[in-house]
């Protein structure tokens, strides 16, 4: 009964039917989208941690602005003024990281660590000072952990503008952004203004961070930037899909996370949203169709199969050469198992795989025989293998960088002239193989 009630409630919140949660949910969706978009370029530019430095550097600006405005007799909690203060010190923090990196030998990560902690410390001091100025400062610490309940229509207003601007800039400048992310020097040699483009990109990040501070807090905002982009990368090999997907993952996480937190008493939305996107990340990491863990595992197992196949066929061919004068006929299994360090289990697997691929004829008892196509494949593998071996021996000084064992036709890599020379040598040592034309279409599968 209780659970049923919860579900229908959640449904209402998700569909934005509840008046008191509508604003918050819409705001976090917009924040998720814009952070996902800006974050994907940040990730590709390898500046993920910059957004963390930036958000921490915002805190002293908030405290300082509150103190200054209050002392001047104004309303210290004016959102636009606080965010202005945050922007100023946030940018200052980013500039200081760049300055430290450029003027000293200190590396990026250390520079960011220094600026992040010092600015955050300064921010805490400022907030403490602000507390001594009376009760008006009470809500300021919500900038640290985030408090969606404190969001007002002004936040929505800012977020709409920023999401729009982010979308337009990402679409208009995707070519330029991806160029400086991939190859900064090439971009500069083409005279693209790399610094200017970097500033636009960082400007977007600053804007999204500052506006998102209230909702999710400065500690968690980095998750909004990075997690959707990192998750999207598992699903695609193309940046133009990656940033769109990152925006979508960010938006959905914001939507779902804020809705769930709205139903649970005293549950901060920022944290729930980060957990939701964390789940999205884990899911993407395993099941991503482009470079998910499972995908990579299956690629590796295909590779192992291929190597196993080549080893088996070559071993069979070499036995045939020795025992049967190189004609295709049934051979005893134990002749094979002696040739390599196959365990019985591995060997059975290889044989049944080769049967499935039509490389082996079904023969009863402890014997096996290559099929016609299997024989041709085996001859080809063996010949290629020997040519490469010989090549490595003959041209040991230059050879390693030219070896491509995967190449279907050695000629494509080494050139027909050299291959002929190698073949003559092979023939002289009685290791030559007359390569029959493979009747099997599968040859094309490996050709380059």
């Amino acid at each position, binding site marked *: 009964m209780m659970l049923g009630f919860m579900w229908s409630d959640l449904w209402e919140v998700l569909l934005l039917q509840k008046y008191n949660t509508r604003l918050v949910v819409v705001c976090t969706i917009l924040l998720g989208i814009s952070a996902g978009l800006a974050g994907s370029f940040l990730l*590709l530019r*390898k500046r993920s941690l910059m957004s963390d430095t930036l958000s921490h550097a915002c805190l002293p600006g908030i405290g300082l602005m509150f103190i200054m405005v209050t002392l001047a007799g104004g309303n210290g909690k004016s959102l636009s003024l606080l965010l202005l203060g945050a922007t100023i010190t946030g940018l200052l923090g980013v500039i200081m990281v760049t300055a430290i990196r450029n003027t000293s030998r200190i590396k990026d990560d250390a520079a960011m660590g220094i600026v992040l902690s010092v600015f955050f410390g300064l921010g805490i001091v400022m907030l403490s000072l602000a507390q001594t100025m009376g009760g008006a400062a009470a809500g300021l610490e919500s900038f640290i952990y985030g408090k969606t309940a404190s969001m007002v229509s002004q936040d929505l207003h800012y977020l709409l503008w920023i999401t729009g601007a982010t979308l337009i800039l990402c679409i*208009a*400048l995707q*070519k*330029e952004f*991806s*160029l400086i*992310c*991939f*190859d900064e*020097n*090439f971009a*500069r*040699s*083409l*005279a*693209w203004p790399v610094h200017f483009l970097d500033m636009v990109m960082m400007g977007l990040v600053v804007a999204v961070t500052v506006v998102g501070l209230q909702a999710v807090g400065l500690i968690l905002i980095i998750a909004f930037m990075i997690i959707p982009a990192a998750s999207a*990368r598992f699903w*695609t*090999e*193309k*940046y133009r899909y*990656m940033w769109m997907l990152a925006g979508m993952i960010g938006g959905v996480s914001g939507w779902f996370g804020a809705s769930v937190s709205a139903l649970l008493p005293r549950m901060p939305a920022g944290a729930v949203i980060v957990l939701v996107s964390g789940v999205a990340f884990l899911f993407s990491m395993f099941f991503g169709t482009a470079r998910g863990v499972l995908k990579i595992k299956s690629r590796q197992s295909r590779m192992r199969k291929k190597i196993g196949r080549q080893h088996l066929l070559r071993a069979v061919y070499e036995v045939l050469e020795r025992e049967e004068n190189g004609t295709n006929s049934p051979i005893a299994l134990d002749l094979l198992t002696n040739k390599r360090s196959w365990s019985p289990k591995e060997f059975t697997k290889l044989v049944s795989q080769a049967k499935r691929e039509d490389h082996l004829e079904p023969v009863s008892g402890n014997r096996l025989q290559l099929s016609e196509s299997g024989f041709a494949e085996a001859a080809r593998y063996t010949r290629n293998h020997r040519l490469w071996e010989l090549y490595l021996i003959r041209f040991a000084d230059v050879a390693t*960088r*030219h070896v*491509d064992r995967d190449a279907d036709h050695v000629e*494509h*890599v*080494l*050139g027909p002239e050299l291959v002929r020379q190698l073949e003559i040598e092979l023939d002289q040592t009685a290791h030559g193989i007359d390569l029959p034309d493979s009747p099997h279409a599968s040859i094309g599968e490996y050709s380059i």
Partner: protein
Amino acid sequence: MSVPTHPPSVPLAIDDLTVAYNEKPVLWDIDLDIPEGKLVGIVGPNGAGKSTLIKACLDLVPRASGRVMIYGEEYKKNRRMVGYVPQRESVDWDFPVSALDVVAMGTYGKIGWCKPVGKKYKQQAMEALDRVGLADYAGRQISQLSGGQQQRVFLARALAQDAQLYFMDEPFAAVDAATERAIVTLLHELKDQGKTCLVVHHDLATVNEYFDWLILLNLRVVKAGPTHEVFTAENLKATYGGTLSALAEAGEALKQTKGAITS
């Protein structure tokens, strides 16, 4: 002191170029006039400033002094006439783009701001990929290409720039035989079209075969000129100094060259 003028037919003229990193000069008083339509090798020991020379020409590193003229004008003015092949290791090949996307970057200068890569430019990029023999790999994500193929993608990108003067930073580094041949063929095609290529190279054994002009570099220009005049034991010794292995390598290369000439 009067600044020498260079006729616009000189693809690359360098006067009095000095480059320093952290107050340590890495290139001293470089003076060079590169003739048009030559394949120019830049050879020298590690740390001789070969890459820096290229980067200084492309305004990628600040110059402490000196001037670089491209076809008689500052680089800023004539940068459209210049193509650049950076070192392969200089970028992250895990980046989410296809081979065609990378090659298309060579046309970005012509496309201009904010416009997507149109059909015409995709076609140009495709043609460039075809010239390096990778047309079948256009859609491949770049991390799935072999090292040699990645190098050829970089070359194709430079071809798509459709330049007059090419700077190539170690295009032959760690590539397979097919790629090496493809690059050599390409260099000769470019030369036949009257284009000039400056190539940082480290394999002394192939210098004579690949380049008709040579710059021996070790913080300064030791010697520059037609390969058959410059590529001598004496000059190599002056370039590589006392380092034994380098000298042995150079001697070996010279021996091979002599053998090739006499046979």
